[in-house]
């Protein structure tokens, strides 16, 4: 396991009988207390798409306020612990290698996790299409996978990265913090004329906002796939 930010960590699970997964899917983790009490939550897979068989799969977990499962997974779990998982789950918010159209990924906060799976899968595909990742992040302290994404943006053919800092920018950066708006989207995202597949993941208000911006900018709503977490208000 690795800390990914001040409030998130990556867990690597050694799954002996993994059925294989697509980029963007998730799994359920079920925890059982000594008295039989159980709690189950879904976590997005961060690892690249994998075939069936014994597999190391990564999940990204952000600590939530009052989160009984996330607090266990971020603060308590140790190497060697046994967890019960079900998956992969979800067959819609996915990217399948072999499709030729460009892909625009847009993530808010820990919504980056399933998008990282797409980026890592893209790296393994020869002659992969153009892939752009646009992230909205509060501050460098809570940015997940920052080092890996910067490295990939510098070296992975066809992949580019844009980050909008909403509260605090990294030291040395001249841009001011601000919300992702129509102007930022127009300069940072692939244009509608390229008809990219758009995968948008993040907290519900963020995804609602971005999906509206994309539709208003002229993207076909049938090409926009979303994954939301949390409440509308």
């Amino acid at each position, binding site marked *: *396991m690795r800390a990914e930010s001040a409030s998130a960590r990556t*867990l*690597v*699970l*050694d*799954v*002996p*009988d993994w059925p294989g997964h697509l980029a963007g899917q998730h799994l359920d983790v*079920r*925890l*059982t*207390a*000594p008295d*039989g*009490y*159980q*709690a*189950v*939550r*879904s976590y997005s897979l961060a690892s690249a798409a994998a075939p069936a068989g014994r597999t190391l799969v990564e999940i990204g977990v952000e600590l939530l306020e*009052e989160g*009984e499962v996330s607090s*266990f997974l971020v603060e*308590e*779990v*140790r*190497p*060697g*612990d*046994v*967890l*019960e*998982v*079900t998956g992969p*789950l*979800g*067959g*819609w*918010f996915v990217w399948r290698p072999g499709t030729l159209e460009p892909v625009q990924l847009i993530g808010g906060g820990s919504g980056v996790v399933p998008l990282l799976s797409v980026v890592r899968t893209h790296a393994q595909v020869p002659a992969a299409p153009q892939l752009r990742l646009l992230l909205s992040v509060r501050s460098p302290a809570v940015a997940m996978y920052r080092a890996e994404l910067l490295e990939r943006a510098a070296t992975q053919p066809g992949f580019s990265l844009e980050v909008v800092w909403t509260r605090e920018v990294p030291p040395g950066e001249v841009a001011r913090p601000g919300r992702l708006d129509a102007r930022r989207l127009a300069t940072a995202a692939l244009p509608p004329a390229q008809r990219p597949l758009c995968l948008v993941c993040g907290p*519900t208000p963020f995804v*609602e906002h971005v*999906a*509206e911006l*994309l*539709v208003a900018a002229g993207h076909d*709503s*049938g090409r*926009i*796939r*979303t994954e*939301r*977490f*949390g*409440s*509308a*208000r």
Partner: protein
Amino acid sequence: MSAVEPGDGAENEVLRVPEVTRGFTGRRRRRTEALPPGQYRTDDFPVLSAGPTPRVDTDEWRFTITTETGSSHHWDWNGLQRLPRDSFDTDLHCVTRWSKFGTRWSGYPLDAFFDRVQTSAGHALVTSYGGYTTNLPVADLLGGRAWIVTGYDGQPLEPVHGGPARLLVPHLYLWKSAKWVRSITLSDEQELGFWERVGYHAYGDPWSEQRYSL
């Protein structure tokens, strides 16, 4: 299944009996009989949708039921208002594990729509503005257990939660309660909907924990 280190081989089988997770005690909330297995209570109203939220004007809203013989019945927003209207409280159970208790809705029981419809079909495919689909047995739409709802918590239903009108079938997992409902197609054969085609259960009873068709 083990975290990080390859295990000693003991877990190289699918775990059949849940084993205690070392170090986990949980934060139990007030237990309630109304919580189906594997669910937790939330007081928020989470939103799950597969794409952008469609904006549907009530002037342009139409709702259609098409039978297995191809005959169609249509309602517009005014026609909807002429049906008997219910206000009711119900619990919601989402397949992503949250349940929300005592939600207050207003809308129109499907029975009133089906009064006009001649059918012996067993299956329904529900289609939304935006293209979402879900399937369920016709029987689950009847008997005062399913509504076209237009109000939530005393207010017009917001687009993000399926407004202006969504199906509500609270005895099944919430993905069956199609937001932005547009039509119901009746058939003798079951046709799977959007989530049902990608691994979710064809029926989706929360009390039997019918989440996935794995």
